[in-house]
């Protein structure tokens, strides 16, 4: 399908038509708080242009609180039920491209290993992804430094570029074409293509760090002094993990209600002391230093070893939000860039 334009004044009609066929999941504004991906209802006006702070879309695919099993022990018998999410066609709209790419990272963990996560799979299987490149890049983005962002387009079914009063829509898959079938769209002109290309170039170049490629995951060292420096400063909250579009760690807990038990999962993070604390008191990561190291090495080295991609998409949330300004870009510059310079000299 050829690229098309859709006027922002037509978006309401488009969404309405879309909602008759799909469950539409898009960022809903919540005052000063970041918008959150929710299933939209009639009359909702989601943020589709990527201009606002938003929670990562993982919160929809991997809810912060999800019941995994229900155990009914009334009547002397133990019955176990597995409440899986509804199987229905869904579309996620309005996700920043780095967030949409983050879903690719979630896929590796939840769909790619020996066990498929049935809850994630139910939401993911029949899901179309429509990402957005906003008119203005966020100051904290460094997407072009973590990956070849051109390859990210294949992971989304359609990509919308905010060109002011209209969106330029690039369709990347049959799923995307089906999604846009019958939408009130018009053909693109050379001027539109040029504007779109300009926006893409700007995105690619936003926050580029002075290293590239292999340096990102090969130069991270286990015994780099930077882990200790981060640990000195780090106050051990879980914000960087909980706001991250690719951090997936979770805990499983039981809750009793009469003769019934609900076993749910909820967020957890390698930054918390009890994350790896074992029942008998031993903790392999008993201080903040190994915990700080774990998060970064996991994203950039271990995930690359496991899946061939790094687990960071450069969305910059942790850069913007860290209470003590531990800036992942600075850390990467220190750990990754230096050997590159040496390489250039050789």
């Amino acid at each position: 399908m050829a690229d098309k334009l859709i006027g922002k004044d037509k978006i309401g009609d488009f969404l309405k038509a879309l909602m008759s066929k799909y469950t539409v999941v898009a960022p809903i504004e919540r005052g000063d708080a970041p918008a959150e991906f929710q299933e939209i209802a009639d009359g909702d006006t989601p943020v589709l242009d990527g201009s606002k702070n938003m929670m990562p879309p993982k919160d929809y695919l991997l809810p912060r609180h999800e019941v995994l099993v229900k155990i009914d022990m009334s009547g002397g018998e133990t019955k176990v039920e597995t409440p899986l999410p509804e199987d229905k066609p869904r579309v996620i709209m309005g996700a920043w491209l780095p967030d949409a790419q983050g879903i690719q990272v979630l896929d590796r963990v939840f769909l790619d290993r020996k066990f498929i996560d049935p809850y994630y799979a139910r939401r993911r299987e029949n899901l179309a992804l429509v990402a957005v490149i906003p008119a203005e890049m966020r100051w904290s983005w460094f997407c072009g430094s973590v990956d070849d962002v051109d390859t990210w387009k294949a992971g989304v079914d359609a990509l919308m570029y905010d060109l002011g009063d209209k969106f330029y829509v690039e369709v990347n898959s049959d799923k995307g074409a089906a999604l846009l079938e019958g939408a009130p769209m018009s053909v693109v002109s050379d001027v539109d293509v040029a504007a779109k290309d300009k926006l893409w170039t700007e995105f690619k170049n936003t926050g580029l760090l002075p290293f590239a490629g292999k340096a990102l995951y090969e130069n991270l060292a286990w015994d780099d002094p930077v882990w200790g420096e981060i640990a000195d400063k780090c106050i051990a909250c879980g914000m960087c993990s909980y706001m991250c579009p690719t951090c997936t760690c979770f805990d499983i807990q039981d809750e009793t209600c009469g003769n019934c038990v609900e076993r749910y999962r909820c967020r957890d993070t390698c930054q918390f002391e009890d994350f790896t604390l074992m029942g008998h008191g031993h903790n392999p990561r008993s201080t903040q230093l190994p915990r700080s190291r774990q998060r970064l090495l996991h994203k950039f080295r271990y995930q690359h070893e496991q899946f061939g991609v790094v687990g960071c998409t450069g969305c910059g949330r942790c850069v913007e939000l860290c209470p003590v300004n531990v800036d992942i870009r600075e850390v990467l510059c220190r750990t990754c860039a230096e050997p590159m310079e040496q390489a250039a000299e050789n």
Partner: protein
Amino acid sequence: MIETTHENPITTLPYTPMPAVVTKIITETWDTKTFRAEFTDEALKENFTYEPGQFQQVSVFGVGECTFCLTSSPTRKGYIEFSVKKVGSVTSALHSMTEGGVVGIRAPLGNYLPYHEWKGKNLLFAGGGIGMAPMRALLNFCLDNRDDYGDITTIYGARTPGDLCFKYEYEEWDSKGKLHLTVDAGEDDWKGHVGHVPGYLKELAPSPENTIAITCGPPIMIKFILPEFANLGFKPEQIYTTLEMKMKCGVGKCGRCNIGSKLVCLDGPVFSLAEIDELPPEF
């Protein structure tokens, strides 16, 4: 809603525990009990298979889940066993359970001891305390397939005679194989060896020739036993152990049991020392 069926759901619904009745509780020591459980689902009870070295997630519904190795041998069918040291909330709840109680089981999980590669070889088990539990699965498996293996020697130690587990099987272990017991501190009626497992290993000096060593025990024992194995001429490829990390999901998702890029729940819990040497020094 999906009602769980008569098959083991671990492959399709990996978080769904299957109810099992505790049919036997053996008090091993003052803080350790071994539980025998049978799935309430008859078909699952019949068809359930596993390999020595694999582990399971055991639920006490309403309290939580905990990771235990399958300590029974797959050759002894119809039930599974796990040994529990009382340390936290789930293990305490298990300890206060009586026969007839219901637990939830997700199993089998993880890799296993590659016994099929060891046919015709001598096996040397060196265990300390509750560390005997994961090795007992393979030990009894090999004793039940006695003709497939050469010498089967076990060195097992604990702090005191009262801390030794599986006493009711020593006769079998020593008659079909050879069992050497040791304690850190003996009591008046203790006639056996006194001393730590690594020291006893040195004293017994088994030959590394055509031998696989399997060792499991508290971290401090592992730390001191590895150099002894090396001194005896064992190569890292000949030494196997099972690693312990905190786990929640057991199926490679929850993210807490990694050592470097390896997940103990998927890539382990069984590792050869050669494999461990490749991992970051995280434990």
